[in-house]
Structure formats: structure tokens, C-alpha cells
């Protein structure tokens, strides 16, 4: 029963909305305007512009950077599934309750503590140069293999903790309820706990995924020429930082849509499950 005349409340709310849009616009314009006017007035601006925003260098290097970026995408694509699998296994191992499985829980704790505690860049060097030095054949010494292994080890430790937090976040009554319905431990986990846990961990998982997208570049430290390395090479060649700016843009072209997609999926799921969003 909507009346043609807006209610007083609607008029009031519309007014408030207009007001906040006006304030947001004015303040944004002021801040950005100040930056746009002030930065070019700094004494070093012209040099910075030459060193970071050279249009010719940008156009020259963009194609080689995009080519090199495929190496990153490939590593990302083939390292993500093993990360998820290993992380889930570690998280489940840590959530076991049987006393006989204590060694498994202890292993899971050590795994996450150690691999999460070492900076990825160090792991890349240690594993990427260390393992092939054992005397592997050329095929098995391939840095792409050991770079991927490193990413899987490091990121599965992070993601395992995210999954564990998700599992712990499901209220104990859910488990109790499922068990009282006669479900086995396994069934409870699979049909009651994990589905609820996964919904909660999508945002932190996306966080890890975006982080992984960037850390893939660390594989370049042990040889393969991917975008970060290619940008470094172009930077040396032109003696100009524009390739780094171009590489950053290419990264953003991947990471921003990914996060937006995750946000959208999450919002849709929230709408479906009937939870109200408070903005």
C-alpha cells in the first residue's frame, strides 16, 4: 500500500541522503583537488614524472610485461588447488579430537607455526636453490616446480589457519545438534560444520588469494622471468621506473576484479541465506 505522496519520513530520509552525498562529493573533490594541485608543485615532480610516468617507455614495455605476466598466472593457477587441499587437510588434522591422533595434531601445529613464520622470500631461496642442489635431474631441478612447492607450503599454512578459525567459529551447538541426530563425526564435519565454516572464510580466503597473486612474483628470485623480473629488466634497460608502474597496473587488473567478484558472491550468498546486511 504505497501512497503517491511520500511520507514525511521518506522526505526526511531523502534529504539526509542528499546531504551526505553532497558532503562526500565536496570533501573528495577538496582532497583530490589539493593533491592534484600540490603534487606537481613539488620541486622533484618533473623528475618523478620522467622516471615513473614516461608514456613511450610504458607503451614499449607493456607487451613484454603482459607476456611475462602469463608466467605468474600459470603459477597461480596450478598452485591454488594444492594450497586448498593441503590447507584443508592440515586444518582437519588440527581439529581431530581422538587422543590417538595427537601426533597428527602436533604435526599440524608445527607445520603452520614453522611455514607461516618464515618469510615467503626466504622459503623461496631456501627451497628453490636448496633442493635442486641435492643433485636432481634437469627436469626435477626446474625452479618452477620448487617455486610452486614453496608457495604451496607457505600459503597452505596460512589458509589452514583461516579454515581452522572458520571451523572453530561454527557454534559448538551445531556439532552437538548434528551428533545428537545420530550423525558420525565425519558426517557432522562434512555436512554441518564445513559448509558453515566456508561461508565465513570467503573474505579472509580472498585476502590470502590476492596476497598469493602478488607473492607469485617471488618465484622470479630463483630464475624464471615473470612480470616482476621483466619489469626489473626493462627498468635497467630504459633506466626508468615506468615499467614498475605498468606492472602494478597489470597486477591491479587482476586483483581488483577478483576482490569485487568475491564481494559480489558473498553479498549474493548473504541475500540468499536471509541474513540482513547493516550498512
Amino acid at each position, binding site marked *: 500500500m504505497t501512497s503517491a505522496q511520500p511520507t514525511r519520513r521518506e522526505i526526511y530520509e531523502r534529504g539526509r541522503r542528499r546531504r551526505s552525498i553532497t558532503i562526500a*562529493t565536496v570533501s573528495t573533490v577538496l582532497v583530490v583537488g589539493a593533491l592534484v594541485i600540490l603534487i606537481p608543485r613539488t620541486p622533484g615532480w618533473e623528475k618523478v614524472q620522467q622516471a615513473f610516468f614516461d608514456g613511450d617507455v610504458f607503451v614499449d614495455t607493456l607487451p613484454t610485461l603482459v607476456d611475462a605476466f602469463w608466467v605468474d598466472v600459470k603459477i597461480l593457477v596450478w598452485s591454488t588447488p594444492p594450497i586448498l587441499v593441503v590447507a584443508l587437510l592440515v586444518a582437519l588434522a588440527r581439529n581431530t579430537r581422538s587422543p590417538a591422533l595427537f601426533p597428527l595434531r602436533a604435526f599440524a601445529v608445527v607445520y603452520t607455526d614453522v611455514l607461516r613464520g618464515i618469510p615467503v622470500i626466504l622459503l623461496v631461496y631456501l627451497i628453490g636453490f636448496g633442493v635442486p642442489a641435492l643433485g*636432481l635431474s634437469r627436469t626435477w631441478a626446474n625452479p618452477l616446480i620448487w617455486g610452486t612447492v614453496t608457495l604451496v607450503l607457505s600459503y597452505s599454512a596460512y589458509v589452514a589457519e583461516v579454515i581452522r578459525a572458520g571451523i572453530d567459529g561454527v557454534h559448538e551447538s551445531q556439532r552437538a545438534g548434528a551428533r545428537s541426530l545420530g550423525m558420525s563425526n565425519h558426517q557432522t564435519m562434512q555436512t554441518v560444520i564445513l559448509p558453515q565454516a566456508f561461508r565465513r572464510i570467503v573474505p579472509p580466503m580472498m585476502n590470502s588469494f590476492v596476497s598469493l597473486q602478488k607473492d607469485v612474483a617471488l618465484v622470479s628470485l*630463483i*630464475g624464471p622471468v615473470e612480470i616482476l623480473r621483466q619489469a626489473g629488466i626493462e627498468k635497467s634497460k630504459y633506466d626508468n621506473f615506468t615499467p614498475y608502474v605498468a606492472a602494478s597496473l597489470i597486477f591491479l587488473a587482476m586483483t581488483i576484479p577478483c576482490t569485487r567478484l568475491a564481494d559480489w558472491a558473498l553479498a549474493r550468498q548473504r541475500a540468499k541465506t536471509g541474513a540482513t546486511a547493516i550498512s
Partner: protein
Amino acid sequence: MRTSPALRRLVPAIAVGALVLAACGSDDTSDDASSSSDAPTDTAAAADGDGDCAATIEDGVLTIATGEPAFYPWVIDDAPETGEGFEAAVAFAVAAEMGYDADSVTWVRTTFDEAIQPGAKNFDLNLQQYSITPERAENIDFSLPYYTSNQAIVGLEGSAAEGATTIADLQDVKFGAQAGTTSLAFITDVIQPTQEPFVYDDNVGAKAALEGNQIDAAVFDLPTALFVSGVEIEGSSVIGQFPADAGGTTDQFGFVLEKGSALTGCVDAAITTLTDNGELDAITQEWLTDFTGVPVITAD
């Protein structure tokens, strides 16, 4: 009646976009103005001519920079203050020629990249095997070269590169080199192997990859190659060098100075003197190994 919520949320974003576009447009004009006003100062600096040996950043002291760490045989034991090692010795000889005795020389460290960026420097001279290139010279000044080096390849016994006498023999070799070096450019531009080379942050990475059987051969400048094969990696040897007269690319190492530095002319004069009186040769003989025994690889 109502605009959609999504559209309304975009209003600030659209405003920003418009601003940035406007700024980009206005940029060009301010750019032109400032660059034309800059031009006279540039010529003024260049007109200084032969340079002024006293124009150091600290009065009476010559501040010389090198890498962190500095590598053999360029600097021995990462201690340039001792004057041991080729570049340390050259630096002190040039300093003496410029009128600074050993006590008036201060050493500082910079990374390779940071020193060749535009901007003010915290050193008067910097030497860490900087190859003189026209691109780099746009941001910084180079002195005359104090050393000219050939590229050379190092491989383990049984390497796919072994026995190569021409560049054509190296087509199927998996190479490695340090990023941003003439060595890497030499692989990609001159050798042009069928397999993409692996690239490392420093020579240590290339050495690790050789030992880990990840590459067949690594390219270094010749003095580094001899050190790597002779001292660092057991079972490796210098498979060949690429002299300029055989189609190779040589590297000329020069001191790096701030763009338009008044010292550049003075350093050049010192290097010319040292070259003419044979002192530079003597330093080279003392600190760098004899290269005559290394096989030559030709372009065709």
C-alpha cells in the same frame, strides 16, 4: 524519480575522475613551462667545462661509494678502505690524482640501482662495475671508462656449452645471468638461445643455479667468471670469452656521478692521466687475473 543507489554512490568517484582528467590536461602546459625554465641551468652546469676538483659534497673529503657487499676481485674482503682489490685501488689512484690523499677519502655503500636513479647523491663517486650506457647517462654522469671487460661463460664439466667455439654452438644452452647486466643483454640480444634464460638478483643466484643443475651455463664479466670458476664452484671452468673483435659485447666500467656534477671533468682528467702514465695498467695487472688463456668464442 530516484536515481539508483549504485549511481548515487558513484558521484564522488565521477567527480574525482573529472578532476584527474582536468589535471592531466593542465599538466602538459605546466610541464612545458618548467622544462623550458630548466634548460638554462642545464647548460650552465655543462658550461663548467673541465670541472672543479674541490666541488665535493663535504669540503676537503672525497666520498666514494661502492656496493654492499663489494665483490672479489673488485674489492678484497669487502673492505675498500684498505685499497685492496681492483676497484678499491683504482678509486684511491683516481682520488690521489684529484688531489685527495688516502686520509681524505670516505667510503659509503649504495645499492647498484639506487645510485643510477635521478636525484641528489650522498656520494661524490660511485664504482661497482657500472657499464656505461646512453640510457643510464640520461640520469647520471659517467666518467671515462677505467676498465673494459669481455663477457664470458662459465659451465660445469659436461655442460651443454662445453666445446663451443661459435655463438651458433650455444643455441640450445640454458643460460642464467644477473638481472639488469650487460651479461643478460648479451644472452638475449647476441646469443639469442632457443630456451629463455633464467635471471637472478645477483651473481650468487646464478652460481647456485649452476650448482643446482638448473642452467647449463652462466654469463659473467670475465674477471668475475674467472673467480667463479677458479675459486667458488668446483668442477666449473670458463668455457669461453667474447672479445669485441670477435663480435662480442664489451662492457666499459665507469665511475657514476650525479648528473651535471662539477667533478666529472676532474675525474675524467684523472683517468686520462692514469691511463697515459700506465698506472691503470699496472693496477689491472696487479688485481685482475691474466685472461690470455681463456678460449675465444666468435660470432660466426
